[in-house]
């Protein structure tokens, strides 16, 4: 057992998978430059020493190297593509949305495209072009699986599963949860480190987990919002409100079972997300719950989300933008007061 941060756990997962399977390689900007940072958040730090031929530093050419990853996957390689900030996925959007997501389907199931895409997200003091939560843009794109690890334990297990999966998998990592150290450390970080067992383990894609058990309200949240939801749950517990926090961990496929079971128990649902409300993760969950579980609900579903604007830079506005524990606590209390 060793206590690792998310950045370290991801690094360990990559190292183990590269050792296990020679067809696994990493590709991206600044991922293995001696004296550099191992990608923007230290995940691949030092791996170029162990795998000099399989840590590929690219030009700043996102459309290009996403396509290179795809092409290489067609002939037996298993790329892990690193994008420094999730926002730059837009630069590679044709390759991701028209090619990576569709090639297998268009081939009538004849080909496989085992690609892992790693992308940092999170609204973290950098303004509109380095802060976007990218999940909603890909949630609606058939052909790509999506995972969102909120702890180091999950990060390792999910990344390993992603590498072994025969399909494209995107892994969204949160800048405030990495626990990156030194010059790349991030102000406002939250400790998401875990005890990592010595023996190998995998976490299946598509399986959520109950972070906190409760009986009054179900909260569904991923990444940073999951941590904030747990904080809020702890606060209201002192006032006698029992909150169940579900971390779906994967968005595609989504673990409906775990959410439904929880709602069957609580009859109340809050979804917390860091992205704008319109068309977000919460919209999808709420719509499905409305279709399939309306009879169980004793209160309207509530979404806590960012406003429908880009992320502002100013710390004062950013604080308003990102849902915080106070807002979650308020929503919990409101929901209880109208429905108990």
């Amino acid at each position, binding site marked *: 057992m060793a206590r690792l941060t998310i950045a370290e756990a991801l690094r360990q997962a990559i190292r183990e998978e590269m050792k296990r399977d020679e067809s696994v390689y990493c590709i991206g*900007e*600044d991922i293995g*430059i*001696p*004296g*550099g*940072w191992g990608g923007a958040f230290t995940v691949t730090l030092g791996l170029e020493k162990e795998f000099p031929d399989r840590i590929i*530093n*690219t*030009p*700043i*050419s*996102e*459309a*290009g190297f996403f396509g290179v990853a795809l092409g290489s996957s067609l002939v037996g390689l298993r790329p892990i593509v690193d994008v420094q900030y999730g*926002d*730059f996925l*837009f*630069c590679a959007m044709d390759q991701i949305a028209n090619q990576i997501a569709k090639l297998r389907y268009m081939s009538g199931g004849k080909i496989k495209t085992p690609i892992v895409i790693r992308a940092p997200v999170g609204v973290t*003091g*950098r*303004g*509109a*072009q*380095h802060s976007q939560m990218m999940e909603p843009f890909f949630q609606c794109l058939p052909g790509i699986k999506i995972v969102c690890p909120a702890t180091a334990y999950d990060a390792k297990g999910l990344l390993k599963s992603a590498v072994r999966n025969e399909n494209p998998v995107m892994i969204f990592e949160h800048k405030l949860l990495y626990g990156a150290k030194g*010059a790349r450390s991030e102000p406002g970080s939250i400790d998401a480190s875990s005890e990592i067992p010595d023996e190998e383990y995998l976490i299946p894609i598509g399986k959520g987990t109950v972070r906190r058990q409760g009986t009054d309200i179900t909260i569904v949240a991923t990444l940073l919002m999951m941590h904030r939801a747990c904080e809020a749950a702890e606060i209201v517990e002192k006032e006698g409100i029992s909150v169940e926090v579900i971390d779906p961990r994967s968005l595609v496929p989504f673990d409906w079972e775990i959410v439904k079971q929880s709602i069957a128990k609580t009859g109340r649902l809050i979804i917390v997300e860091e992205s704008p409300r319109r068309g977000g993760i919460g919209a999808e969950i709420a719509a499905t719950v409305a279709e399939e579980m309306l009879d169980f609900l004793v209160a309207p579903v509530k979404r806590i989300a960012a*406003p*429908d*604007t*880009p992320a*502002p*830079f*100013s*710390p*004062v*506005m950013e*604080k*308003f*933008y990102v849902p915080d524990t106070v807002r979650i606590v308020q929503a919990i209390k409101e929901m209880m007061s109208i429905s108990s």
Partner: protein
Amino acid sequence: MKCGYSKEQLLEFYRKMVLIREFEERVKFLFLEGIMPGTIHQYQGEEACAVGVCSALQRGDIITSTHRPHGHCIAMGMDIKSMMAELFGKQTGCCKGKGGSMHMGDIEKGVVPAIAIVGGGIPVATGIAFGFKMKKQPRVAVCFMGDGATNEGTFHESLNMASIWNLPVVYAVENNFYGASTHVSLVMKVEKISERACAYKIPGITVDGNDVIKVYETACEAVERARKGEGPTLIELLTYRITGHSRRDPALYQPPEEKKKALENEPIKKFSEFLISMDITQEELEKIRETVKEEIEDAVKYAMNSPDPLPQDTLNDLFV
């Protein structure tokens, strides 16, 4: 003066370069002290590029900038008070606190809010030039970018369009030899980035980007060509970033020997030596630096005393 420039003009080049340097040094300190929020990409060592190029422009010309915009903004004559306030995320900032370091700009001064997606500004500058041409206005667009940006598809698509439509645009490539931590030699095989222009039949020139006069003269020619309707030019400016890439980057990937040489060749030192050889005194230069420092202190005070935006201001400014 025997170099063909008036003393005023030379000292104005000097003042602007020192203003950028001192601004950046002050910002670095504020940032490292934890007083300033956000992240920053700084311009120390590249001052001659911005000052040389922007001094060749007229009112009405427009530039696009990058994730490293402070130098471009100052060289275009933006108010450093509103820049400093923006860095603090204040209501009085040039983008009312919405933009921050990476999106600094003021369209009144000809600076499009900086575009922090590498290569993202290249088609935009090209489009501005396209607009000038469609409207038959004798105006010029300048697109600042780094060496790294010339590996983006947008660079190649834009240069081709500027070429076929003969657009009034100047592509100013600040080659500081690194894209983040990656040395140019790892990501391109051409020896000069200016060689890339010939693929689009655009003139491509490489000059010493640490020599403000050289930069200015080269930019003047390119801008004049553009204004006369003779089409785009690519100027490669050879320079060096004598600070980290961003935030607290110690730049350990830059070899010590290389850094040392770069410091000897940095543009302000170089230009000071030239000015002294033109019989301008050390005292005159010192005086300029002192005045600039006072101006910056005023800007810091202004920024720190400015009101924060209201939290709900987040919701403004999305649509017209």
